[in-house]
């Protein structure tokens, strides 16, 4: 008896010890290489989905591609102006349809082959012909892509394209990619890529981390950090804790509510605006599809609604101050394209004014306080949807529906997953939706979403005009800016289009939410915001920071040494097979113990008889 109990106790202790050991073990990443020993560790919440630029879609993947590939013309850090990358100079024909790029002659792929105009032509042509999803919009208009010699590329379009010289397509090595046909190219993992950029991918532990080491032969000079390691975190608190403890040097997309937990003097927070805006979309009823409420076809109703939303309150109460109240629709990451509405013309928050607009327009309140159409029918009860992907939307909707109550509009609120919401929007079976958009640098895509041509016609054609809004004047301005080569003219036309959007209000832009980043200023210096003042320092358009960042030379000698070591897997790595083995042992012990007890019971019964 006593022996058994001792064994039992020993087993229990053993299991607990074994279990904790199992949890602790796990893969440790290889040590870094590169031209310097400095390791910059970045914390992120999103893993790369694919190292293949033709297949991946997530933001973290773009981060990798920015660091390991090149484009013809890149974006300047402070104002997104064109800067040379593969191309050293460029010029356009007088009518703007033919562009000629002169390329560098000293660029090399990581396998030693030279990067020539043939690679450029090959990549652009395939992207256009095979409609590579990430790049097609930028190349679809090219009729002719040729390389008259090894260092010149000529691109001809059917119409003038004001976005050139920018062609945001990562140039890929022809000699590697020509082995993959149209079907294979979208699925091969590309985890040992041949690249030309300042960093090379050296390791990827899916779900845990990936590592990029500096390219010592990079044409612009080797980066000042030898290794950049990205660690994937499962939750924000752990990521913030890692920044505080020095396990990571920079973080991206930290929950803004945790900003107060990283307020040491050695941490610099970056409240970045990446162009994203959140809007209230109203179904204005154009087109054959959908059953939006007729009241929303009246711009006065939409303007009244715009007056009934306190955007400052949303920023302060819902975003805890981390955002900018919304104004015009943001059509570009580049602030020079975005309209600033003069203060006296904005939809200031005024419930009384909203009510009077609706009263004067004939939408009288019924006996239950809910307004009806001017003929007394169809009470203004709107179906209001929002996606479950972000908990902030639920709070936005709560505020908005209460304000709408105050102006006599009732709402029926439903949360849907993004996947479910997309067909609901496409078929027009809604009245109000809160969602977000993130524009590109090129304003045309975002502008195009609200053109007449994007109004869904069949309910499953995947068009983007979720406001079902059609305005000929706006469409005309969109078409003209699309081919307007004079930058000042183009900007004026774009702003005029935005003014129409603001006045007609198919969207009410609620705010531009801040993405919170932060870095250890006592370890690294040289981070740049792109664009200046408001932009992010990492996860930006072209990620210039990684080339400029260098370790802080401090007297305490901290910095790179610590961050290079001690890289256990992140807190959501845990163990895998060892944990299962331990778990199985526990289960067996438990079941065996139970069986033992039952066996004892039977024996005791026998003893009785």
């Amino acid at each position, binding site marked *: 008896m006593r022996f058994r109990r001792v064994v039992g106790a020993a087993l229990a202790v053993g299991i607990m010890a074994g279990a904790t050991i*199992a949890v602790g073990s796990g893969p440790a990443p290889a040590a870094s290489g590169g031209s310097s020993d400095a390791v910059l560790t970045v914390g992120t919440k999103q893993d790369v989905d694919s190292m293949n630029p033709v297949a991946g879609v997530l933001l973290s993947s773009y981060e990798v591609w920015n660091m390991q590939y090149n484009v013809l013309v890149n974006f300047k850090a402070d104002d997104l102006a064109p800067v040379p990358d593969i191309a050293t100079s460029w010029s356009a024909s007088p009518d703007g349809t033919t562009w000629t790029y002169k390329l560098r002659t000293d660029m090399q792929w990581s396998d030693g082959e030279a990067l020539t105009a043939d690679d450029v032509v090959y990549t652009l042509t395939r992207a256009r012909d095979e409609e590579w999803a990430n790049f097609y919009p930028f190349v679809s208009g090219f009729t002719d892509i040729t390389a008259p010699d090894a260092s010149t590329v000529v691109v001809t379009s059917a119409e003038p394209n004001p976005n050139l010289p920018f062609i945001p397509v990562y140039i890929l090595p022809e000699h590697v990619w020509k082995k993959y046909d149209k079907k294979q190219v979208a699925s091969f993992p590309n985890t040992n890529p041949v690249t030309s950029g300042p960093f090379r991918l050296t390791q990827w532990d899916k779900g845990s981390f990936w590592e990029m080491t500096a390219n010592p032969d990079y044409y612009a000079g080797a980066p000042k950090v030898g290794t950049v390691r990205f660690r994937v975190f499962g939750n924000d608190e752990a990521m913030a804790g890692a920044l505080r403890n020095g*396990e990571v040097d920079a973080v991206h997309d930290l929950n803004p509510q945790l900003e107060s937990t990283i307020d040491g003097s050695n941490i610099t927070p970056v409240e970045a605006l990446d162009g994203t805006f959140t809007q209230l979309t109203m179904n204005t009823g154009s087109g054959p599809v959908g059953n939006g409420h007729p009241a929303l076809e009246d711009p006065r109703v939409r303007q009244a609604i715009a007056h009934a939303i306190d955007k400052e309150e949303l920023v302060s109460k819902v975003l805890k101050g981390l955002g900018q109240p919304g104004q015009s629709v943001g059509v570009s990451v580049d602030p020079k394209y975005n309209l600033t509405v003069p203060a006296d013309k904005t939809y200031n928050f005024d419930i009384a004014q909203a009510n009077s607009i609706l009263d004067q327009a004939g939408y009288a309140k019924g006996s239950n306080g809910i307004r009806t159409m001017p003929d007394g029918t169809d009470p203004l009860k709107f179906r209001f949807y929002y996606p479950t992907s972000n908990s902030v939307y639920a709070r936005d909707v709560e505020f908005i529906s209460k304000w709408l109550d105050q102006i006599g509009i009732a709402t029926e609120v439903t949360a849907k997953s993004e996947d479910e919401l997309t*067909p609901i929007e*496409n078929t027009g079976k809604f009245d109000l939706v809160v969602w977000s958009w993130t524009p590109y640098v090129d304003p045309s895509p975002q502008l195009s979403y609200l053109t007449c041509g994007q109004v869904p016609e069949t309910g499953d054609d995947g068009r983007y005009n979720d406001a079902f809004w059609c305005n000929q004047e706006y469409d005309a301005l969109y078409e003209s800016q699309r081919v307007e080569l004079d930058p000042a003219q183009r900007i004026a036309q774009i702003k005029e289009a935005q003014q129409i959007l603001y006045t007609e209000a198919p969207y009410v832009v609620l705010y531009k939410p801040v993405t919170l980043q932060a870095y250890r200023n006592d370890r690294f210096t040289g981070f740049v915001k792109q664009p200046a003042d408001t932009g992010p320092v990492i996860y930006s358009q072209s990620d210039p920071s990684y080339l400029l960042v260098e370790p802080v030379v401090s007297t305490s000698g901290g910095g790179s040494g610590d961050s290079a070591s001690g890289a256990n897997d992140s807190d959501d790595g845990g163990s895998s097979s060892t*944990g299962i083995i331990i778990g199985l042992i526990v289960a067996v012990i438990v079941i065996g113990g139970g069986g033992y007890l039952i066996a004892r019971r039977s024996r005791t019964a026998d003893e009785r008889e």
Partner: protein
Amino acid sequence: MARRVFAALLSLIFVLTLNFFLFRVVKSDPVGSLFRGRNVSPEAKDRLRTEFGLDKSLPAQFTAYMGQTLRGNLGVSYATRRSVGSEILDKLGPTLVLVGISTLLSAAIGVLMGIKAAWQRNSSFDRGSTAASMLTYAAPDFYIGILLLAIFAFWLRWLPTGGIENPDGGGLFDQAKHLILPCVTLTLGYFGEYAIIMRSSLLEVVNEDYLVTARAKGLRDALVRRRHAVPNAVLPVVTLFAINLGFVLSGSIAVETVFSWPGLGLATSDALRGPDYPMLQGLFLVFSGAIILTNLATDLIYGYLDPRVSTS
């Protein structure tokens, strides 16, 4: 025995079918939402729909699903784009550790408390332990976690606030420290059940004839208790334990969320944000499968050990 295995298989098939159809209730377009705001041509989207198998008819999708699942392919997570199977394998260990230890502890503590309470019926210990059991049972398990977290991690700062180890680099002692609060939470939540059942089972047994005989023979109280009463009274507790074993995997969902413990439970509540349907489907399968398997194993072991158990 064959009948039991067959019944378990039927249950598994039922779960698989339920799993498939539950998620078809949703009318969704994951490809459309994935490419929202990107100028992707309808042809490219259709190609992806074919890749995801979304263009097939319902019966074809069902057959594909059954075939894939039985081969171990649980699909690809919408959020991380990794295979659901490998995500689950990664997170299985921490959950097994947390829940395994808590279940053992709560059973042990509960049983011992129940024995003492029954043997000293109506004493202050008995009343106290019953009160404690009822109190912890009345609190949601995640709430016990929140209270412990507030007291020990944020106010007293004795223990870490979450995760499985310090990002600075763990070590055995550090991980044990991280394990304490979630483990205590689950133990507190579940010991009460064992205590109360052990107590009432023991009270029922105590009056049976053979114990009177034992006491009449002059045996000491403690001996009577240990050798005769307890082993016979422990059966309902063992039954409870065996039943709980299967539910062990899914029992920690809320607590793992409170403590950011990187196990299957946290994966479940993370998958809700989206929702990440392939992950939810895979997790549901794993949870139900675990119960079916442990039920089967328990049935078989019982049948082997105690021939009196009926084979119905």
